[in-house]
């Protein structure tokens, strides 16, 4: 377990800012106690100070996980966000997409969001913007990237993809062994 280097922090923050923008500050500067990012075996964990201090006493090979896993670094140094980060992201998301009940299942099985399943979308969402996907009763289901801006979606046919799937809560079951 170690803190992130500047390069790594930059990669993580850039990825997070894609979804929550300036609200990233609220993740770092929290009123309810100190939280920090820690790297352990290529995975980035978002940990409270107390947990981190307890974790220090565990040797590196023995430490499996601590805090909330936000994602992992690929071998080429890119940062990939995991579904476990959804709780923190959905709270501060700038752009949101709500999908209809009949679209929930296809999305939770790892498919993209089609226009037919689109319930609501935040006004003036730009193209290729990170968005958090919610069910119609405001339960966060996952996140993805928009394929078109809000204005352009109106002209599309119902089978075209609106949000490219990146992660969904179904991964808790599908990727249980590698997720945390």
């Amino acid at each position: 377990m170690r803190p992130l280097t500047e390069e790594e922090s930059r990669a993580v923050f850039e990825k997070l800012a894609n979804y929550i923008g300036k609200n990233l500050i609220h993740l770092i500067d929290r009123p309810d106690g100190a939280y920090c990012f820690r790297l352990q075996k290529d995975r980035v964990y978002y940990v409270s100070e107390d947990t981190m201090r307890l974790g220090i006493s565990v040797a590196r090979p023995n430490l499996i996980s601590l805090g909330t896993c936000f994602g992992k670094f690929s071998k080429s140094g890119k940062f990939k966000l995991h579904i476990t980060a959804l709780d923190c992201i959905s709270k501060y998301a700038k752009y949101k997409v709500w999908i209809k009940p009949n679209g929930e299942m296809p999305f939770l099985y790892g498919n993209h969001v089609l226009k037919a399943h689109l319930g609501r979308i935040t006004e003036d969402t730009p193209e290729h913007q990170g968005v958090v996907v919610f069910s119609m009763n405001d339960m966060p289901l996952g996140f993805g990237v928009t394929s078109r801006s809000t204005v352009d979606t109106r002209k599309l046919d119902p089978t075209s993809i609106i949000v490219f799937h990146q992660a969904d809560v179904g991964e808790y079951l599908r990727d249980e062994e590698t997720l945390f």
Partner: protein
Amino acid sequence: MDVSGIIASNAAKYQPVEVEKETPLEVDPGLLLVTDLNPIDQEGYNANLEEHLQSLARDGVQALLASLFSLPTQRSDEGPLAQLPPPTTALPRAKPLPKPKPPTKWEQFAAAKGIQHRKRDKRVWDEERQDWVNRWGRDGKNKQVEEQWITEVPANADVDHDPRKIARDERKAKVAKNEKQRLGNIARAQGANPRGVRKEEIERTLTTARISTASMGKFDKKLDGEKKVRGVKRKFEPTEKSLSEEKNTSLALISKMGSEAKKMRREPAAEESVLNVRKAVRFAGKTRGGAAPARGAARGRGRGKGKR
């Protein structure tokens, strides 16, 4: 009729044209600059600052204008123009003095041996032509042999003996040598030892070559005296650093990223904001059978197998 009262009241309205000061004002009309060297009047300064400053400024401008009107003038369409003299106030230079050039290898040698630099004339006397000719360059004396229309050939010369080519090669070799020495001088001036640079280059190539096998050099045969490749030592912050410090560095990084993004984002031009060029190309491509318009035009036909 007594007009002295009117004159007095009129004079009171305007301040005197001549500026009287203890130390006269220094005027430099070339820079349109007036310098007031008088000490500040403490009472006036404390009583009413604004008025005091205004009166000081007024005096300065008055002195400047008076000096401008005393200058020689030139007629122009917009009226007479005063011709400013060259400025007398020396301004400090904006940039530091240029550094002296580092000496070349020859200059170092000459300085060590006490050899005086002697300027060679560009022209030399040609006995045959009884004229001054260029030492080098156009019709230069160094090209005399190769430009002769007839050349003596020694009796035991080969069949393919070409005196013109030999002379030319000799001259070109001198040019190449000079160029190499010039580059060496530049490299030395940069603080690089040319041998060291070359050695580093070779070592880098060798390291790359050693890890360029399928096993990244793991199963290669080791040569005698081959050193182990050492990578860069990484250094990380301690895990148990104070979190407030870490928070501050993170926040600084975020604000830095924000300002970078702002710098990257340029102001969109007016027509750009209305027209999404990429999209327009895509739509135009759809109507013409999948080829982008520019591509279709370049091929000279409407339908082509372009990338969508």
